[in-house]
């Protein structure tokens, strides 16, 4: 008991000195669990996130856009790989995490449960969803767990390219015909609120925040990050000349930041629970790919065994 308490104290003082915790270091079980949950959720979000954008690869309007979109979605697969590896350093297997995703035990970002129904959605996702992800992830570059923090540094570099390409798609549409501009506005209307929801519940309803902040897994609260995102994005919408769908959005001179309307938390919790427009399709697509890939993975394994026997 004494020993455990001492270890906990020592652990917390390492955190407070801003030391990175590494895979082989002692850590409280709860810290390990929190990280496995968070990194797993993050990895799954990358993988499920490939689907809404993958939906437009064959229909991209130009060869340049097709190439950019392919490489963007491929980057997401790469991010998934880094993150699964980071989680594996904590003693969980990728296969187990994938099973948890398929069974619904593990979550992924709810934003990917919304459908991509026009080309402008590729712009809106890059601009808003990746924009929100960057705000989250820049903060995570300084997270206390070493392998997670290092993968975030790598990922952030690519995400800022993703965000720029999304904004560029929007800019091109907004400079284009009235039909193209309407497409861009419609995408903003549909993606704005779900993007704000990406930061998670309001601080007052986020029970895990305090502990995560103390462990420096999180460095800012959900509401702080959401505010940062709004302040960053509003001027960008002004450049595009499209309107954010929030009547309460207004610059507050006193606070030096924007005030904005209340998020529809009912929708947020409903989508988290599985009742979003594409929850079933997304998991179905992931399971289908995994199940249809079973014989391929089996073959690779069988062949590797045969080969190693031959060498032996």
């Amino acid at each position: 008991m004494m020993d455990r308490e001492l270890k906990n104290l020592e652990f917390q003082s390492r955190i407070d000195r801003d030391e990175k915790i590494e895979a082989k270091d002692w850590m409280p079980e709860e810290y390990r669990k929190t990280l496995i949950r968070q990194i797993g959720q993050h990895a799954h979000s990358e993988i499920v996130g490939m689907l809404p954008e993958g939906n437009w690869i064959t229909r991209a309007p130009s060869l340049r856009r097709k190439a950019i979109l392919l490489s963007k979605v491929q980057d997401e697969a790469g991010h998934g790989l880094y993150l699964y590896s980071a989680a594996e350093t904590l003693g969980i297997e990728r296969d187990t995490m994938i099973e948890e995703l398929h069974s619904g035990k593990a979550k992924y970002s709810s934003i990917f449960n919304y459908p991509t129904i026009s080309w402008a959605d590729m712009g809106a996702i890059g601009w808003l969803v990746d924009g929100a992800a960057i705000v989250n992830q820049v903060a995570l570059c300084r997270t206390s767990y070493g392998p997670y923090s290092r993968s975030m540094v790598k990922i952030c570099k690519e995400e800022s390219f993703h965000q720029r390409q999304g904004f560029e798609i929007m800019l091109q549409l907004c400079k284009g015909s009235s039909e193209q501009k309407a497409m861009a506005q419609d995408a903003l209307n549909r993606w704005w609120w779900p993007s704000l929801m990406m930061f998670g519940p309001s601080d007052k309803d986020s029970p895990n925040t305090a502990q995560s902040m103390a462990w420096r897994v999180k460095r800012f609260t959900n509401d702080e990050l959401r505010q940062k995102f709004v302040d960053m994005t509003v001027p960008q919408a002004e450049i595009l000349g499209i309107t954010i769908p929030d009547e309460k959005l207004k610059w507050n001179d006193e606070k030096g930041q924007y005030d904005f309307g209340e998020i529809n938390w009912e929708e947020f919790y409903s989508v988290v629970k599985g009742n979003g427009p594409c929850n079933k399709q997304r998991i179905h697509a992931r399971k289908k790919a995994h199940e249809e890939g079973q014989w391929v993975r089996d073959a690779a394994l069988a062949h590797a065994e045969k080969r190693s026997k031959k060498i032996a």
Partner: protein
Amino acid sequence: MSLKNYTLFLADTSLILGQRLGEWCGHGPVLEQDIALTNIALDYVGRARLLYQYVSELDANGKSEDNYAMMREEREFKNLLLVEHPNIDFGFTVARQFLIDAFFVPYLEELSKSKNERLSHIADKALKESQYHLRWSSEWMIRLGDGTEESHKRIQSAVNSLWEFSGELFSPVPYEKEMLLEGIAPDVENILTRWNQSVNSVFSEATIIKPKDSWFQKGGKEGVHTEHLGYILSDMQYLQRTYPGQDW
């Protein structure tokens, strides 16, 4: 005209294969292979762009690469039939890729010696990619062929089905013959020998039985396609056709 048609044949073959491979993105059998398939797709889309840009210079009419990709119809596309074949499953995709990679490696090697500097330059760049693709597809042919009973059955049946599309690689059409005479296009007779060597050696290691040559489908190079191409184009060209003349 022959040079333009020949370049379009190379460009269309690259684009349609890139398009097919792009369908895999997000649906691969395992994350690492999802990434590999997308990589190959990207190489082919990149190749198509360079080739269409060259066609546009030859035409000197101010048309962009997208004009060729997005605004031509089925009968104008000159791609090989093999590359428009649906992905079906990972085995079909690997077999299609292997048959084409085993062709492109020697073909691009020869094309890089072409009298046409532009094509020679593009071939040089593409060759490095195709060498990597061939290594990838050969390894998978062997893993699947010499893996489990099921994988063996699947890859053998993919090879059996795709075989009738392999003859088109080696049946030159008039514009190719003209390009050969001008020292621009490679002689496919020589490519066939090297293709057979790759195929025989990989099939043997993979325990895949080489189908007997009987009858081969052809027509793609002259714009007579399978029924699949129309669907590929209506999907790929949808935005440009719905909103013509706009920038994206």
